[in-house]
């Protein structure tokens, strides 16, 4: 059975801190890994990673994929209260063309 695991499940930091969120997976026919940010409403897209070792960056957020060790990390530097959200990791598989989601990491950034 395809599985996506995220850690930590919950994290509380102060503004200005740097955080690293982890996502590991066990799936057949891996195609890509995606990160989403979910505040009160629908998840919004952050990154899609397909190749190992290539960092994707957007402002203070960056992410990288390791297809050999089957994991990805999402880094957020100089955190702000607006970064408080649930961060979801999902893996797209070729079989069934399905997105398998992890449980999410709930990040709380305190002022």
């Amino acid at each position, binding site marked *: 059975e395809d599985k996506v695991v995220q850690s930590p499940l919950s994290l509380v930091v102060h503004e200005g801190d740097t955080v690293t969120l982890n996502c590991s997976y066990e799936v057949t026919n891996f*195609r890509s890994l995606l990160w989403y940010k979910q505040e009160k409403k*629908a998840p919004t897209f952050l990154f899609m990673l397909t190749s190992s070792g290539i960092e994707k960056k957007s402002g203070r957020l960056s992410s990288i994929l390791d297809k050999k060790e089957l994991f990805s990390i999402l880094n957020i530097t100089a955190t702000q209260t607006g970064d408080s959200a649930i961060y979801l990791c999902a893996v797209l598989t070729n079989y*069934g063309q*399905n997105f398998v989601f992890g449980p*999410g990491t709930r990040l709380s950034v305190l002022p």
Partner: protein
Amino acid sequence: EAGVAQSPRYKIIEKRQSVAFWCNPISGHATLYWYQQILGQGPKLLIQFQNNGVVDDSQLPKDRFSAERLKGVDSTLKIQPAKLEDSAVYLCASSLGTGKLSTGELFFGEGSRLTVL
């Protein structure tokens, strides 16, 4: 570009009642998904459509849940009869499809929050 539309946003019903949710995906998106997200958990796939055909409904509780996508555009998800454990947010998402031309990205609607009392 209009996003994925869902309605209703909120619904409160008593157990054993029925409820229906509606989703209109982004125009041109061939693939449509219904996810169930229970508080504190990640989204769990209920059903996936490719145009108007079902690709995966292996996790859909078929004794009480049903879904259709007539004409390959809008979709409805029905629960009848509802149970307490069905309380969740029901997210609809769409994508271009997952063929060679697809970015693989999912676009989500704002969700329908169901509370079963």
